[in-house]
């Protein structure tokens, strides 16, 4: 059984929503992501991050994200996709999908 550990999130829910709203949808973060193995686009990822209704492919992607941070540098507007992915992981844990 997975043991829940406290996660150090430097962005809270409203801040993650703020980041998603500021995303310009260029897909650069997903282009460089080494953990992405499915055709997930940024609009789907943003929509599900905001709504909390997470589809199976996005849940798989969130689980496979290992927080390497490769998505941060290419963002043209300086957003932290790793924090958004961490938020998705937390949502999955809370909803019991993990």
């Amino acid at each position, binding site marked *: 059984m997975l043991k829940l550990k406290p996660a*150090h999130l*430097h*962005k809270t829910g409203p*801040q993650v929503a703020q980041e998603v709203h500021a995303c*310009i949808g260029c897909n650069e973060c997903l282009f460089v992501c080494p953990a992405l193995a499915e055709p997930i686009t940024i609009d789907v990822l943003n929509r599900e991050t905001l709504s909390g209704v997470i589809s199976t492919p996005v849940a798989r992607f969130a689980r496979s994200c290992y927080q390497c941070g490769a998505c941060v540098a290419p*963002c043209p*507007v*300086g957003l932290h996709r790793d924090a958004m992915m961490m938020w998705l992981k937390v949502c999955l844990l809370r909803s019991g999908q993990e």
Partner: protein
Amino acid sequence: MVLDSIRRAGAKIYTDTHVIGIVGRVGSVVGVVTNHNHMLLCDLVLACTGTTPVTVLAEHCNIPMLHKNGILVDDQLRTSVRDIYAAGAVAALKNPQTGTHETRPLWNAAILQGQTAAAAMTGRYELAAQPFGVSWHATQLGELCMLTVGNPQHWTENAKTLTNSNKGSYRRLSIAGDCLVGYLSLGPTQPDSLAIKRIIDEGLSVRDVKEALLKGDFDARKYFSRQQSRAAIDMVTSGKLPAANLTQRPAPLSYPSPATHAILNAYPPRSTDALPPFIGAGDAIEMSPRQTEPLNEPIAASRNFWSYNDKGSALIQRHPSSQALWFQRDRNGQFVTQEER
């Protein structure tokens, strides 16, 4: 630095050059004619000459709508006229740093304002609960990342400016006390832009991270983790809970039903209507069921509107066409009209 970056990306830049004509037919462009009588061939013309808010609608509104360099709105994008909202480049929001109302003709502000206005109009106040905070703009020109948070250019009093110019990068910090009030960054990498906005919005101390912000190697995750650790240690050692965050927007206000509103509008208030309780200079109370944040303008726009000036006098505008009546508290705390005094 910006021009060099654009040139490196392969673009030609003509300075001190104006377009005086566009050559082509309807639907297709051949080129533009400049003031030096040169013709530059092109397929597309984009006009980027800044924006000026169009306030014609506000000027011709039957009910006076407050406007000055844009239509004045509160944090929920409500204008001074009930049930009319303004969003985008025409909406003049209150700058939390200066207190003045100014427009934000930026893409991010337009998105947020559209969402906030739509949420407020449809009664989804929980979606409109995020304060706008200071202005924020991030973009990329060629290989150059640009970020502006707050107003790093126009701080002169009580703020000191720190700059750092390295190879291909420039950073400028405006700091008042220990708090960051403005940040400008140009360089090959983009800093954690919204984390810097959060630092300015929440007025957090940057005493320990000035150098990192100047050099561009600011680690937001480490900084906020440390902030949380400090807050937790303070809580444990002092035994006191941290103070409430006053930057949060107050709870959304409830609106009356449309039927009630129609009745209230049909009957203007009588002079014998009960006076509102005194709540202090500068605060405003609306006699109609809606409350709103006071705008920094003389209150003469909406009917049934109470406000207090800095002397504690109360002004009631009973109807847009009627003359304003002044009330002031006497020694017994009772309101008296100007004529009675």
